[in-house]
């Protein structure tokens, strides 16, 4: 097995949250789906209960596909939030933990360069954590699809079973795309977290956050401007407006039953949202990559040359 593969496996051994966190949520969602299927949970819109079966039967396949994509899409968003949390805490911990538990000299006794080690932590954040989460998301989506599909089939319609694979595939495409653009956009953030992790003697979380607040506040006090704050804000949420577009082809659909009313505007397919051109041409992306390179080089340098044992 190659050195990098071994190092990536090692990260999943130490940081088991990488696998366990998405699995926990997968189980929760599957259980919710099962409870809903058993009729233990009712969907409510406003003050009115919605009869799921009745609702599904009233839709044509195109609408059904769109509804399923919306459902799976919000599931994907949820998994994405989990990915971001796991990644943040992983990066803050990974180079700090080996100093805290005094195993750093053991790791340094292995013939692996500091660049490779820091690279393995970065690849874990950019590749392993998202891939594990997408795999778990895929399995969850499949589970929910089968549960609801079979339920509706029993109720007399194969529509959900028919519309599911396409909807799952579309959501998967957009989940992978999201992960790719996020990993690139957040690279300087990852670099910063790694630098804090390798450098801070304790309280990594405070060291990661407080300096950023401090410079933002200083700028405001001294110059009365908010440039740094805006930059940071952009870095955290700016990727979505750059990488996704508002599609024109929405389909509107209205469901009405005794007392219940549901008005939905749906995208025919989530994949229409994908548009990387603005993202790839944005100075924020390329500037961020330069900053990331500097931060990562600093992290490697600190791990290589700091002598504190």
């Amino acid at each position, binding site marked *: 097995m190659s050195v990098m*593969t071994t190092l990536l496996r090692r990260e999943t051994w130490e940081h088991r949250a990488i696998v366990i966190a998405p699995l926990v949520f997968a189980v929760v969602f599957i259980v919710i789906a099962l409870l809903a299927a058993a009729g233990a949970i009712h969907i409510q819109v406003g003050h009115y209960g919605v009869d799921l079966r009745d609702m599904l039967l009233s839709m044509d396949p195109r609408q059904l596909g769109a509804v399923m994509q919306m459902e799976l899409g919000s599931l994907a968003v949820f998994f994405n939030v989990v990915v971001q949390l796991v990644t943040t805490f992983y990066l803050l911990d990974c180079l700090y933990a080996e100093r805290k538990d005094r195993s750093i000299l053991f790791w*340094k006794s292995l013939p*692996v360069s500091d660049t490779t080690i820091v690279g393995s932590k970065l690849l874990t954040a950019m590749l392993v954590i998202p891939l594990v989460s997408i795999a778990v998301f895929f399995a969850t989506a499949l589970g929910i699809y089968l549960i609801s599909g079979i339920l509706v089939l029993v109720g007399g319609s194969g529509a959900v079973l028919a519309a599911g694979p396409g909807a799952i595939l579309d959501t998967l495409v957009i989940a992978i795309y999201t992960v790719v653009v996020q990993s690139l956009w957040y690279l300087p953030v990852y670099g910063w977290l790694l630098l804090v992790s390798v450098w801070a003697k304790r309280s990594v979380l405070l060291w990661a956050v407080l300096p950023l607040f401090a410079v933002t506040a200083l700028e405001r006090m001294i110059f009365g401007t908010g440039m740094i704050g805006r930059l940071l804000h952009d870095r955290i949420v700016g990727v979505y407006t750059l990488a996704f577009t508002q599609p024109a082809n929405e389909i509107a659909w209205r469901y009405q039953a005794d007392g219940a009313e549901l008005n939905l505007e749906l995208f025919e397919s989530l994949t229409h949202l994908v548009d990387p051109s603005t993202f790839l041409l944005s100075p924020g992306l390329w500037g961020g990559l330069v900053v990331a390179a500097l931060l990562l080089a600093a992290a490697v340098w600190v791990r290589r040359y700091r002598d504190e044992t």
Partner: protein
Amino acid sequence: MTTLVRAKNLSKRFGNVTALDAVNLEIPEGRIVGLIGPNGAGKTTALKALLGLTSFSGELEVLGMDPRRERHRVMQDVCFIADVAVLPRWLKVRQALQLAEGLHPRFSMSRAEKLLAASEVRLDSRVGQLSKGMVTQLHLALVMAIEAKLLVLDEPTIGLDIIYRKDFYTTLLNDYFDEGRTILVTTHQVEEIEHILTDVMFINHGRIVLNETMERIGERFAQVAVAPEKAAAARELQPVYEQDVFGRKIFLFQDRTPQQLAALGESRVPGIADLFVAKIKGAAA
């Protein structure tokens, strides 16, 4: 014979404390060298310089490479066990073997498995569940399964009980050491390793104060128990060190002929611990 380590004017300062003061030394292949010194003498600093873990001035070559610039290449042929280099608690024994196999080109899985089978360490245990002695057994098995040229041991048996300490060096000597290997070891428990050493280096205040093979130590140093009335005669031969033991004077001589000492009493080769005390305290006096 190849020289594995060559240091010339090796120096290291922390602020105004000199940890290493222009150290010159060479370690040839196939030796077991004991680096012995009091706390703060510069032992660990010397080892860290050699392992590329700290900066220094002067020249230092390990296997012909500069450990600062080529640390990860040096580490293909150099292994180390230090009491400060602890194995991570979350690591399972099996995972430790997989790690070594994936990361070390000279690691033999079958050899490590064989060594561990002979120990109390089980493959599905976590390091955190093992006793300190068992962790050391595991670390030793990992290191012994690596075809390395130089093994550096920094206080490897500290905190272990006596049975593990004995086993540690016996295993090392019987199952690991041969002409192609070199071991550099520091320890406070000199008595434990003196019978396995081929060379001894004393370090004090960052300077090497003695650097001899064990044979030469036998030739150069003698310890004589002298009756009180002969003490004056003994002092004329300028002993390195003297002490009172049960009413008798024990003198330690350096570079005196057997003929010179014969009149004083029976002489014998001093133990490393006695020699160490004589050299370090004698220098201070």
